[in-house]
């Protein structure tokens, strides 16, 4: 824990290079963000469709089916979007980052870089960090958008909830600052947690095949736990703030 905190600060200190060369970050946004896109979109759609069905069931008992839009969108924007997208991100992009850095270390690519007077923290680690941190909120937003569309498909198109009230109640209930901003804060924090864990595990992995494979597993387990715990802490603070 202490070592990884130190790693995090070192990484921030070494971020100068990649701010001067944004194409380094763009490349990482592509590799961690764009490659996670399909799985995020598909999962978002299904989660939204399930929400639509379950929500309709529950709301119907109270005779307030028109609130389905509110239920679907708030669940997604506040909770499921950031959390599920981050969990998917951890297993898709996080594990890939750990494996890549671990292998670069095991095959002496990082040592070779240092021998060329290029700091791997600045050249390899920092761009991946910023790439991940920037991708995460965007992915969470796309997850939520897809989910809302899924809820609409099931609720309005399939079951026949009134389309007008589905959208208008949703617009009235979702607060930009309270809901959307908080969702963005959450997913950014998750993005930081996942990428720091993934990078640290890779950088710290014993330079063997076994070491790298264990580190990859640890990335997925540790960052999933971190996401769920952080979600609790952040949610607690956000509700108290209301």
């Amino acid at each position, binding site marked *: 824990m202490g070592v990884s905190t130190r790693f995090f600060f070192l990484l921030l200190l070494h971020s100068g290079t990649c701010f001067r060369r944004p194409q380094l970050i763009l490349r990482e946004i592509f590799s961690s963000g764009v490659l996670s896109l399909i799985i995020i979109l598909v999962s978002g759609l299904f989660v939204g469709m399930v929400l639509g069905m379950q929500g309709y069931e529950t709301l119907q008992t109270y005779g307030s089916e028109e609130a389905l839009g509110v239920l679907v969108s708030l669940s997604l924007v506040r909770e499921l979007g950031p959390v599920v997208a981050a969990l998917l991100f951890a297993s898709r992009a996080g594990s890939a980052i750990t494996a*890549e850095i671990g*292998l*670069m270390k095991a*095959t*002496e*690519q990082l*040592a*070779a870089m*240092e*021998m*060329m*007077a*290029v*700091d791997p923290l600045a*050249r390899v680690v920092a761009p991946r960090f910023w790439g991940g941190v920037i991708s995460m909120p965007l992915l969470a937003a796309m997850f939520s958008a897809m989910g809302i569309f899924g809820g609409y498909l099931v609720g309005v198109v399939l079951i026949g909830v009134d389309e007008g009230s589905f959208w208008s109640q949703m617009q009235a209930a979702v607060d930009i600052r309270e809901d959307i901003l908080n969702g963005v804060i959450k997913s950014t924090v998750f993005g930081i947690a996942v990428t720091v864990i993934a990078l640290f595990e890779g950088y710290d992995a014993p330079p063997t095949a076994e070491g790298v494979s264990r580190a990859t597993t640890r990335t997925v387990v540790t960052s999933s736990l971190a996401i769920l715990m952080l979600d609790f802490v952040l949610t607690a603070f956000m509700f108290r703030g209301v």
Partner: protein
Amino acid sequence: MNDYSVNIESLSFAYDKRAVLKNIHLKARRGQVIAIMGSSGCGKTTLLKIISGALRPTEGAVHVEGVDVGRLDQAGIYALRRRLGMLFQFGALFTDMTVYDNVAFPMREHTDLPEDMIRDLVLLKLQAVGLRGAQHLTPAELSGGMARRVALARSIALDPKLMLYDEPFAGLDPIALGVIGDLIRRLTDTLGLTSLVVTHDVQESLKIVDYVYFISEGVIVAQGTPDEIRASTLPYVHQFVHGEADGPMAFHYPAPAYDLDLGVQHA
């Protein structure tokens, strides 16, 4: 500037408490190819790491290109490394880049040269190792010998003054081995650099080097020109040069007497 690219005096080095190098004196004259030989685990890689500033000497002074490596801070070490090239044991090519981008990497990181000039330089370096035609391949598509040559092209990208080679012959077939040996000699002569070759391949390196140091258990046990080494009557050198299984370097790891171990004879 003096005549020596590397000048090591009374160097000792220990990992934690375990002494790995003991009282090493070693000089590499500018423009020469120097071999450091010894069996695996005798401290050769450690020595290269000290020369390149990755490890600090426990005792003694290491001068590389006129600067005392042991006293440099991180910035100083990075400045020194821009004048060093190192060939890693397995090449250590960047697997996410093509051959071309690997060779261009040091230039892009350390110079502001325009891309068309970088292109000319990259092709020049690749031509020097005979792999200009392989520029679009990825490291996964290269044979071991080709990868080593690409890594060599990358390490001379910024025209170093001193080249360090860690086991450049390990794991190569005889032809690739000869190619790498020739390249080391030719590049040293044409680019006017100094080469320090760490190896346990005696036959190949005796063909190309100017001077040889033998290390055994962290101590320099013999040194001389290839002819002197070939003629040496020192038991250790003789064993090494002629590849004999037993000698001062015992074939058997220290063990209790065989009959005791087998339980044939009761103690």
